[in-house]
């Protein structure tokens, strides 16, 4: 099967609409297809990766622990736009730690999250074959 570069662009907050949750479902299913997968979080999408999410007040499912499984699905390229974080008064420390084990480096545990500028993200987007927007 051909390998393509897939980028999932997440633009919405984790709650308030279903896009974040159903985007994550696509990413997990897609893992079985062994494509070259990247995730981008921009605008309110950066809230999807916030630490210590608690949805008990709104009665929605808290699916945020699922992001921590991404490393086990070989999803290790997670790009968070710097400007989106800054505009919301957030930094990388506000995000949950996401890691993967690098099979090319004796399974060393490495950081999956890369904070990138809007310009760098534009270059990443430019390199993709398939872009899915959520």
């Amino acid at each position, binding site marked *: 099967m051909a390998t393509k570069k897939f980028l999932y662009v997440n633009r919405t907050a984790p709650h308030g609409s279903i896009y974040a949750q159903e985007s994550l479902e696509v990413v997990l299913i897609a893992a079985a297809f062994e494509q070259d997968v990247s995730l981008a979080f921009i605008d309110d999408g950066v809230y999807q990766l916030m630490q210590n999410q608690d949805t008990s007040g709104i009665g929605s499912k808290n699916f945020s622990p699922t992001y921590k499984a991404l490393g086990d699905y070989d999803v290790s390229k997670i790009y968070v736009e710097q400007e989106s974080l800054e505009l919301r008064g957030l930094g990388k420390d506000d995000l949950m730690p996401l890691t993967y084990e690098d099979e090319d480096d004796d399974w060393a545990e490495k950081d999956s999250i890369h904070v990138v500028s809007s310009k760098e993200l534009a270059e990443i987007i430019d390199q993709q*074959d398939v872009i899915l*927007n959520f």
Partner: protein
Amino acid sequence: MNEGPYTHQASDSAYHFTAAALRAGHEIVRVFFYHDGVNNGTRLSVPPQDDRNVSERWSELANEHGVELILCVAAAQRRGLLDEDEAKRAGKDSNNMAPGFQISGLGQLIDAGIQADRLVVFGD
């Protein structure tokens, strides 16, 4: 196709794009309906007579050109879009799938992305 009919123009745009691509001689691998987009697959909508019938229009496209119209099973179940088999399995007293639509999994979206030269997303 990520939005339901009527509230957003996305479904109309996706339909016109698909029809125009077919007229221009392109091959459509499939149309995959996700999120509220699965609502395009109901056969029970009754729009006013002077308005377009969005789901019927999709069905006609499937009938005339053999375009695959796939509803994501998980998204469809959440929103009450069921074919005969799904309705039976879930113990429901009815089904509402329009002709030409089929229920399948998200793998069909990824497979289409791999097969096609271009993947075009319609939504907000």
